[in-house]
């Protein structure tokens, strides 16, 4: 799973380089990647889900796990560019109200900047 990182100010933007399925063990890789960033002191994250073709309960669990770690470190993890198929699973599991979801990376970045 290739994840591209881009730092803008204090915010790290994560995006998947290729289309991915956030399922099973692949989602553990993602979660560990995020945890490494947090251990590195980077706790303002935006994850671009535009390349996610499919997500299952393991993928959801990885997102929630990453969110809990980042929030307990005083930061936040925002989602951007969420495909309709992923959005419907977030809604189904009531996680759409747990995550701060934005249409684009730029919107999510602005939300961080507005929060100071």
């Amino acid at each position, binding site marked *: 799973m290739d994840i591209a990182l881009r730092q803008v100010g204090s915010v790290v933007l994560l995006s998947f380089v290729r289309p991915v399925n956030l399922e099973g063990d692949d989602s553990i890789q993602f979660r560990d990647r995020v945890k490494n960033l947090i251990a590195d002191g980077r706790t303002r994250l935006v994850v671009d889900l535009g390349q996610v073709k499919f997500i299952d309960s393991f993928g959801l669990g990885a997102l929630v796990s990453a969110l809990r770690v980042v929030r307990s470190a005083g930061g936040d993890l925002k989602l951007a560019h969420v495909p*309709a*198929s992923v959005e419907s699973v977030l809604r*189904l*599991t*009531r996680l759409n109200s747990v995550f701060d979801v934005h249409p684009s990376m730029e919107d999510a970045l602005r939300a961080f900047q507005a929060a100071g």
Partner: protein
Amino acid sequence: MAGATAGPGGPGDRIEIRLPSRADYLGAVRSVVRGFVEECLDARLPEDEVNAIQIALQEACINVVRHAHRGDPSKPLVIGLRAVPGRLEIEVEDFGPGLPPEDRRPPDPDPENPREGGYGLFILRQTMDEVVSARRDGKHVLTLVKRLPPRGGSA
């Protein structure tokens, strides 16, 4: 010539997919089921319904791979598909103990206290019209039913 109630596949024909219990194959299984839903039903389902069927199937299968067969790929995972008028039936067969009883199942998701797991069964119940866990011929069979719109219509 088509029968009075037959879709492109005869009514009740069962298509079976048999595979080793490995998560790596589940993407292919989802594609087959999508193909079946798109090609073999009388009615065309909206995309969100097709996605719902795919996620339900994924949760049923990953539950078998992870829990029922505990990562033992030598145990076969068998998925049966059947469309009869008004219903799509998906059977997932395994050699495990079946779903936990109602009182040992995870609680519904709570946005105030989001959990890292326990979404699978909830997703199954939310996406499918019927979820039935039963034993048959020494196996556990999870039957997932999606009610279909009337012939030629779209939901």
